[in-house]
């Protein structure tokens, strides 16, 4: 189809301009990816600002979803009342046994602490935050929390649900933050296999069961062993439960975490005063210079 005159030339020009705009957007996308890889503070701040802006909307949308989930959960519980009751009775008997054991050990522990003049660990401060966003993407396991730096949330802090570790804070905005789950491909958690005291690194790979890497020595790890955090790296305090070993096959050890992702509505962001884990590949910020400028 050939057009003649000024109108035709204008159309061609417009098409060219459109193509050019499209190509520059493609270039912009690549530039952003490279810029993000180089870890420019600007990108991180922009992400924080945008999530802060979206946080109130996401929060408002998350609430009815949580209510609906609670109602269906209630119905589910009502139908299973009898079996649940039997299970709880059995568990209660077992736990009562553990309680007597724990009381005995506690008194023993107090005496030993006194004899050894142990300095007690400081009580950790914590913030309870609501989960306001969970995209459920296959490319990364993270969630948005409705608490940010104004509530005392800092990058690298541990996030617990109940007693179990579920992840750490990866990005912080003013009133929102991103929780990186231990199953995310970027997550690395120093751990200890409780029964054998074997150290290893729990490496997420975007599946529900992260694997154990860099296992120290050649231990016999078997299915059902409990996995807890290790103190190495100064990221988390030792002994926070993470999960149990789910499978050992061909040298690949996978851990079933205690996280029940669909049940997470509130999580606790805990400040153990350890500075938290810093992502690999990143140099620590020049603290001294920054402090000097403030003073």
């Amino acid at each position, binding site marked *: 189809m050939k057009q003649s005159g000024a109108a035709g030339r204008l159309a061609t020009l417009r098409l060219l301009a459109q193509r050019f705009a499209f190509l520059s957007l*493609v270039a912009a996308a690549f530039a952003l990816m490279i810029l993000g*890889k180089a870890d420019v503070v600007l990108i991180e701040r922009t992400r924080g600002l945008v999530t802060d802006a979206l946080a109130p909307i996401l929060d408002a*949308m998350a609430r009815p979803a949580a209510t609906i989930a609670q109602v269906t959960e209630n119905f589910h519980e009502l139908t299973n009342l009898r079996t649940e009751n039997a299970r709880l009775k059995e568990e209660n008997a077992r736990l009562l046994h553990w309680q007597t054991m724990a009381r005995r050990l506690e008194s023993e522990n107090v005496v030993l602490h006194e004899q050894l003049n142990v300095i007690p660990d400081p009580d950790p401060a914590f913030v309870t935050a609501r989960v306001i966003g969970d995209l459920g993407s296959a490319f990364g396991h993270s969630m948005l929390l409705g608490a940010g730096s104004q509530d005392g949330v800092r990058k690298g802090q541990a996030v617990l649900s109940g007693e179990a570790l579920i992840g750490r804070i990866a990005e912080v905005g003013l009133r929102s933050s991103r929780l990186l789950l231990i199953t995310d*491909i970027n997550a690395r958690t120093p751990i200890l296999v409780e029964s054998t005291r074997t150290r290893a690194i729990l490496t997420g790979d975007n599946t529900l069961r992260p694997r154990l890497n860099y296992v120290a020595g050649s231990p016999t790890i078997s299915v059902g062993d409990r996995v807890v955090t290790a103190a190495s790296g100064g990221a988390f305090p030792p002994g926070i439960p993470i999960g149990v070993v789910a499978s050992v096959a061909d040298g690949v050890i996978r851990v079933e975490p205690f996280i029940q992702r669909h049940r997470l509505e509130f999580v606790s962001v805990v400040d153990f005063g350890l500075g938290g884990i810093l992502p690999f590949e990143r140099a620590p910020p020049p603290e001294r210079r920054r402090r000097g400028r403030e003073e």
Partner: protein
Amino acid sequence: MKASIWVKMDTWVRHLVPFSATLLLLLVTSIPTHIPGLAGIAPMLPLMGVYYWAIYRPDLLPAWLAFVIGLLYDIVAGTPLGVNGLVMLLVQGTAASQRKFFLGKSFAVTWWAFALLTGGAIGLAWLLMSVLLGRTIDPVPVVFEYLMTLCFFPILTWLLARTQMAFLRDV
């Protein structure tokens, strides 16, 4: 005859519908659904919005708006900034350039083309993410996410078509 200011404003607001609808899809996917097993394979709803409007109203959701949606998706999903921006941009560009082929065709053809295009899009996202992270991402959840996205396409198309009929029938 010149349109009155109210008519102009009405048209202007109606023209915002495609972008708002796609933005809403993005917000809807980010709701914590509390459904066991859905996390990790949730469908890419905004991609369907971008695809639908690229075919039926490319003037109202142009490439740059698709790019913006993609960047917002990156920020909410926590993926490296630009990955989904590029993916959405290319989906919009491809669908909009082939739109004459779709108009008047049956739904099955649109679905089939969506399957092809989304396959390419998710494959590209997987490739980009793997390159940026420096190691291969497990493709199994990605394939499940792709299949979930395909399953949700008819419902979303129906909803978007109702939206288009309600707001954009004659503007």
